[in-house]
């Protein structure tokens, strides 16, 4: 099928099978390899992207169900070459080690920062994202630091 969707603020038109995973469409058709495949069964959250602003496991989204919708990947968080405050906080606080979980972790954290009512705390917000390297302490501190900085800088709503 011809699939029209919006990826990181830009219109995209790709030819794809309607049941192809959104994960594969992003990596193969769109060339956006920042989205990682971890388990491929919806358990680990490495492939998290935002679909109309909501975090989803892109390995469990058939391409056809992304038609006409807005997708944000890790590549879409930078603005004019500058890191998003959440990305900056993960770098500063050491919230990453091997890096496979990091794009999904950051997108889930950004979704929560934009809508704090979606989860009671950072633990619930990131419960769908597994990290096998660092443990979660530095990841959680990175999210807390980003929230603090955003409050100071007033850029919590930045795309």
């Amino acid at each position: 099928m011809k699939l029209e969707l919006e990826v990181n603020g830009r219109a995209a038109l790709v030819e794809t099978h309607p049941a192809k995973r959104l994960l594969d469409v992003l990596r193969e058709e769109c060339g956006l390899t920042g989205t990682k495949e971890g388990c491929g069964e919806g358990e680990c959250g490495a492939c998290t992207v935002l679909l109309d602003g909501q975090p989803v496991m892109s390995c469990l989204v058939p391409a056809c169900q992304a038609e006409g919708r807005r997708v944000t990947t890790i590549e879409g968080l930078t603005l004019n070459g500058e890191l998003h405050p959440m990305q900056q906080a993960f770098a500063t606080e050491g919230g990453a080690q091997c890096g496979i979980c990091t794009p999904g972790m950051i997108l889930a954290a950004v979704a929560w920062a934009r809508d704090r009512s979606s989860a009671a705390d950072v633990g619930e917000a990131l419960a769908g994202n597994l990290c096998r390297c660092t443990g979660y302490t530095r990841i959680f501190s990175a999210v807390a630091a980003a929230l603090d900085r955003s409050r100071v800088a007033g850029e919590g709503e930045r795309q």
Partner: protein
Amino acid sequence: MRSHLADFEVVRPTSLEEALAFASTQARKPGGVTPLAGATDLFVPFNAGQLAPTTLLDLHRIPELTQAPRWDGDLYRLHALNTFTDCRRDSLVGERLPLLVAAARELGALQIQNRATWAGNIANASPAADGVPALLAYEACVELASVRGRRRVPLEAYFTGYKQSVRAADELIVAIDVKVPGPGARHFFRKVGTRRMQAISKVVAAGVLERDAAGVVTRATLALGSVAPVTVRARHVEAVLVGRRIDDATVEEAARAVHEDIAPIDDIRSTRVYRSRIAERLVRVFAATVTV
């Protein structure tokens, strides 16, 4: 991704009539028709190459199925594509049907709740479903549609065996009706798994208890998951509780009665013995402290 995409056709009707007509003509063909809602269950075997070739019937372009949940007095109607997040975000659901929110919060994680549907949780017919016990505790009713017409089935009568149901191959779940219990009802939900989220239940329980001014139980519903081939209503436990005050003897008797309601097995997630003990324990907690 181990499936061959070429083995799967995807049909995307834009009206319920079109979907039902397609299901009716394709139902008997090899592979049949598989309704595709949030894909969070279906795409797991699909990704693993364990889903037999079939025609996927994508329901996302059907307005009747995608419309928001609707309140009609004390009746709450979920449509086929309504997600667990839809329930979590409706403050009225939290007040009046708190078990739906409690179940939604512990099902998968946010990424799953944003896509997974209540109807899909029923259609998948897994005994470990987390949404089903909450719906059963509220005595929900499933509405099925086909070219032959519509019918309503009490959720308790929907499941006929492990991953088996009364839904015919040409039928779709179009809605689920849930009725708000009387004022003063106590609501109980408890999921026991390896971790709080992203865990498939070892045992999951949901119940509602209503009592009169004298403390006598007037209505009790208790549903248990992961302890039988289907999610069950603990009818023996309920029968012990109704008509009595909750005292130590009643709690003891109710806890023992649960063994008449369940048939747990050993599997990769837990054991028969553990599940029996936890089921008994959950009955005690339900009867004694009924609270979400």
